[in-house]
């Protein structure tokens, strides 16, 4: 456990160093990262090129995608590392800012943030609000208490139970859509501001299950700090879809630049490296897509 914590700190330090250094000047010089791409940089909106900064909002309660380091302030995980890699290619600094998940798309749409990097599943519904640059593939899993006291094996077993989910997630949508199948034994669907709050309900027995994306769910079930309390109800992944970076509609320059950068990262192999590092290789995509929501 301690070793893991140390490695997390180490990663945090590496990420910190990367984002702190002057991107254009040092990106090419440093390690095995993807080289800075001037053409992509030039595609960025002038405002971004001027500030040299992109601000992505995230809810850092979704390991291994993103979480707080032990200091309670640094955000670490697959997605911060990916953001760093993208920033290097684009020659800008990508800041990860914590914020509520539920309103994240709106904040992007209204220009508060440049994007969201918080395991946002790309759906047709959401594409109405923002464009998506998709980088990952995963479905939804059911998390239950270790030992599975409520004997839940699939979605239909959730009927009559309290189920917790994070506000505004596809999992919350899925639960609501599943409610129809429960008949006179409806689920009590409780939604919380962060995924951690939802998990707290499950940990303390106030909820029978939590729905998470598969990578986050399996991390909980396997990480030594949490595996005593949680397990997967089954290996099934419901409604698999793509994770994407929401970008304001109309900001095609940023969208395309991000897509280009993502392709570069994927092509360079660093993408695969980061997936391996965080144990989420199952969700690899072959190339970046824009608005790749699967039609229902």
């Amino acid at each position: 456990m301690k070793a893991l914590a140390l490695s997390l700190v180490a990663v945090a330090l590496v990420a910190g160093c990367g984002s702190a250094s002057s991107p254009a000047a040092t990106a090419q010089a440093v390690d095995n990262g993807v080289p800075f791409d001037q053409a992509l940089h030039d595609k960025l909106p002038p405002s971004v090129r001027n500030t040299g900064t992109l601000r992505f909002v995230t809810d850092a309660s979704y390991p291994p995608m993103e979480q707080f380091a032990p200091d309670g302030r640094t955000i670490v995980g697959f997605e911060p590392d990916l953001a760093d890699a993208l920033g290097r290619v684009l020659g800008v600094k990508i800041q990860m800012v914590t914020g509520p998940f539920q309103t994240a798309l709106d904040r992007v749409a209204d220009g508060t943030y440049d994007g969201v990097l918080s395991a946002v599943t790309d759906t047709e519904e959401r594409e109405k609000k923002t464009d998506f640059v998709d980088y990952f593939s995963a479905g939804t899993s059911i998390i239950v208490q270790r030992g599975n006291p409520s004997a839940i094996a699939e979605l239909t077993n959730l009927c009559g139970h309290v189920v917790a989910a994070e506000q505004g997630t596809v999992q919350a949508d899925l639960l609501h859509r599943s409610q129809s199948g429960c008949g006179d034994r409806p689920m009590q669907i409780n939604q919380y501001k962060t995924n951690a709050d939802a998990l707290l309900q499950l940990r303390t027995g106030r909820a029978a299950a939590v729905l998470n994306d598969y990578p986050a769910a399996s991390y909980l079930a396997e990480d030594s700090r949490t595996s005593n309390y949680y397990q997967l109800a089954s290996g099934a992944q419901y409604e698999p879809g793509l994770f994407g970076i929401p970008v304001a509609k109309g900001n095609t320059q940023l969208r395309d630049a991000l897509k280009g950068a993502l392709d570069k990262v994927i092509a360079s192999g660093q993408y695969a490296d980061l997936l391996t590092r965080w144990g989420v290789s199952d969700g690899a995509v072959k190339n970046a897509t824009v608005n790749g929501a699967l039609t229902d």
Partner: protein
Amino acid sequence: MRRRRSARRETRSGSRLFATYAVASLLPVGALGLLLLSGTRDDATKQGQDQGKAQAAVIAEMAIAPALDDADLTRGVTAGQRDSLAKATDLALYHGSVLRMRLRNFNGQVIFSDDGSTSGGVPVGDPAFQSASNGTATATLVKDPEAPGGQIIRVLQPIFARASGEAIGVLELYLPYDKIAARLHEQMTVTYRRLGIGLGLLYLAMGLISWSTTRSLRRYAARQEHEALHDGLTGLPNREAFRQRASAAVTDRRDGAGGAVVVVDLNRFKEVNDTLGHHAGDELLRVITARLRTALRTEDTAARLGGDEFALILPGLDPPDVRALLERVRAELTREMVLDGVPLTIEASFGVALYPAHGEDVEQLLRHADAAMYQGKRGAADIVVYAGERMAHPTQWLVVQAELRHALERDELVLYYQPKIRLADGAVCGVEALVRWQHPERGLLPPSEFLPAAEQSGLIEPLTTWVLRRALADQREWTAAGRDWTVSVNVSARNLESAEFGPLVVGLIEEFGVAPGRLTMEITETAAIVDVEIARQALRALSALGVGLSIDDFGTGYTSLARLRGVPLTELKIDRTFVDGVLADPENQAIVRSVVTLAHGLGCRVTAEGVETAEVAAWIAESGCDEAQGYLYSRPVPWADVPMMEEVR
């Protein structure tokens, strides 16, 4: 007493070794103790701080974070959150579980405090605050004169407000330390006591180990020393130990009191060994040892020098007391004992050398005691005190004496004769009879090989008698052959001391029918002046009869000339040492001339001994000597080979 003292010395050196060990092992134990103590003290301090941190963590997690719910401290707290905070902390503050509290954002602003103030607190630049900002709590003991014990704990604790683990600010808490300190003190006391007892036991164990080790070593060394210095059979000190103790006794003489070194020899030991076997011999030695121990005082030492030879050191005794003590010892030793069913009585000879009177060197004392002991064996006395140089003799004389006895019986002795030349005409005027021993193994032995041994024993008497008879018998033969030589026979002082000697010579003269004037008794200077009345009488009687008296080796003894006056001498023989170098040495010339004058004055003839060259012979003749003897003329030879006057020339 000596043994006891040396035992005490061993114990003392042993306990010194032990003390060294004890001190040496005290050092590591002490160092270990100090190390553990300082470690314990450090641990206690750290424990106190950790306890403070643990308390703060619980307070932050259970009271502060829930009250803050969703707060963004950079913007301050809402009235509701402030209320919740107050509610959550009121009781703890009121009861003093928490002394002071400040809630601060990362910029250092005080968002909430126990007393409503927004100032004060740890500076933002303080490492403790920085550390808390970076997620690590720190606890520090700070002085507070108002607090009981004068110390409180200040903890800076990051606040992880949400389940996600996000930190939102820093909680500055002041917690009472006196109770923690009291409990730590209590723990420390217990630890100190355990440590003390443990180290004490460790030291004790090391002490016991070193004590037992030094004791084993000491015993081993003592045993080694004992074996090196003691006789295995009897347990008595051996010759080496005897030497050490004797020299210590001689050196350590207190009050100037002397003592005695005594050699004891068992008279019939060999007999016992030969007839009853070695086992009985050993048993006999053990019995003798026990008896010696019984008879001696505690301060005396008995030692076994080897075989049946024992030695005693009797310190602090006057000669009469020595004799009295030895009488008791002898009485004890000669008590009848039964060995293998055979009752027997052992006799012992005691040779006594007194120190410092007879020397202060142990070897010398032993030699003297030995000499006295052999003297005792020869005579009837069992306890003999050393009485001067005459007693000295080498031990192998015993062998010589035994063999000589046989030699006399087997007629292994022969007489050789060396001619005396009358310088006036060069004619042989007499011969000196010199005894030779035709030894069956060692060949023809000169008198120096056996005469001293004979002189020390009664053997000299039969020997002299034999020489006299043979000489007189030979003289009768050469007289018959037409030679009118006188014959000189060497006579020992011991012969003269014997009352029978005078009559013996008279008897022999009569028996062989020789003229007394043709027999000369050669005696040494020392023998000539003995104070024994018997000797004087013998000399006078022989002289009156007409027997010649010659002083042999004149000039080498310590004769007072006054003593010579009473002796009826007929001849002085100048020792060869003066004659040999007379040509080169004016002093020798002076001596020879003086002796010639002296002798002629006393009415004696003068004979020069050891004449080896014609030159010396010429000088001697010129100086006034009457006769000469030496290799120039002839070596000692059987009488028939003595050269005639013409041949000599």
